């Protein structure tokens, strides 16, 4: 009897689960079965207009609401323009920026600070960039970080090996600091045969991949999100229809008879 009780107790023992970073985004924490594993570096690959910026900014806002320090590195548009666009959403409060909970950095300004004025970066430039980002993370105590977009940044890196090294070093350093990061990648197609990143190397070394794109349904574009990979969690790999509401992102499972992506 004691043996049986021991066996039952063993079977009933919960499996080891990693601590999670609750994104607070409607649907996403259910898709990832409880949130993104802490310290994960996730590639958010998406076509233009698919909602990447809104989703990643909402990720930071929910962190800020819980008192976490967050950083957003804007490489595709000036921070002033970004904040002006994001203010239309009711989830965003400018006070979070004023209080230093959400810190927005222009990559161009960062490049200037570091004296990175060349058209392409060499290994030393990349190391100083990683160090600068790490210093910011350490100084402010950042636990949530977004780089929008890593594609724009990688255009300055001349070969795949350097891109791989840059992302690997950055991901490793951020994970060591306990910082959960979303790296935005611009892709031109989110269909079944598409790459999930611009250079094809980002997806192999990062902890997670989320793809955002459009389903063309008789000429109307319906946004979707799909979590393709997420190390450390048993997640859904289904496509979810996504809507950008004034309250932020909302998701529902995509109808199975209407999922063919363009």
């Amino acid at each position: 009897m004691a043996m049986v009780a021991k066996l039952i107790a063993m079977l009933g023992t919960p499996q080891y689960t990693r601590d999670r970073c609750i994104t607070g985004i409607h649907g996403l924490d259910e898709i990832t079965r409880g949130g993104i594993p802490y310290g994960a570096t996730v590639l958010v690959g998406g076509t233009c207009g698919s909602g990447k910026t809104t989703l990643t900014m909402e990720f930071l806002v929910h962190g800020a609401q819980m008192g976490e320090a967050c950083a957003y590195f804007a490489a595709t548009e000036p921070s002033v323009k970004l904040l002006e666009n994001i203010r239309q959403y009711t989830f965003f409060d400018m006070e979070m920026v004023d209080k230093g909970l959400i810190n927005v950095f222009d990559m161009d300004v960062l490049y200037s600070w570091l004296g990175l004025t060349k058209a392409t970066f060499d290994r030393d430039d990349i190391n100083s960039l990683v160090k600068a980002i790490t210093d910011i993370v350490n100084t402010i105590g950042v636990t949530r970080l977004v780089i929008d977009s890593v594609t724009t940044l990688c255009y300055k890196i001349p070969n795949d090996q350097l891109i791989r090294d840059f992302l690997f070093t950055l991901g490793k350093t951020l994970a060591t600091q306990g910082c959960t990061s979303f790296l935005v990648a611009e892709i031109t197609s989110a269909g079944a045969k598409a790459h999930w990143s611009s250079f094809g190397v980002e997806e192999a070394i990062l902890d997670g991949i989320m793809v955002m794109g459009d389903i063309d349904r008789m000429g109307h574009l319906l946004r979707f999100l799909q979590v393709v990979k997420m190390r450390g969690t048993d997640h859904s790999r289904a496509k979810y229809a996504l809507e950008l509401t004034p309250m932020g992102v909302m998701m529902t499972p995509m109808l199975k008879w209407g999922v063919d992506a363009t």
Partner: protein
Amino acid sequence: MMELDQRIAEQLTEITLNSSMQIRCGSSNSFLVSASVIEPLINEFQMGGVYICASRPAPELIATFTEIGVPVGGVQFIDCVSSALLGGTENQYTNISYVDSPIMLESILLKTLYRLRQMPTEQNFVILDSVNALAIYNEERMLAEYLHTFINTFRARNILSGIVTVPDQTPPSVLANLDLYCTDLIDRGQVVIS
């Protein structure tokens, strides 16, 4: 003055909040039946809700509801028709959200959920008017799948749902699914004897 169907109001007293009603009507009495459903929900049960217009533009419906004394100021309308009409979205109503096309079924669901999150009322309803209009644009299997999702989504949230259908013009598999998944039936379908 249009006289509402009081038997529907009586039937509604027996329906629970997580019910899903199949509202059968004929092609000529659909507005009367819809009005007879939402009037007691608003006035007697003090409910708020979302009304999905796939058959007619929301401004037209709001004007007609108002004209017959159904106060729909607290109801949010999801309009799937007006975007297809040039200038159709220009009106004075602030309680209308637009969906580009009835083919955007997931958008309709998400916009409905969004509006429900903003509702000040504790008890809410969702009316889908109508399955027949959605069937014009959507393939039968997809529509059947959607109705399955739609009904279960609102039942799980304790939100009363009602789906308007003209049964003799509804695809058989869709109607079979409605029969299977809906918990209640309000039957005001008309039989045409030719």
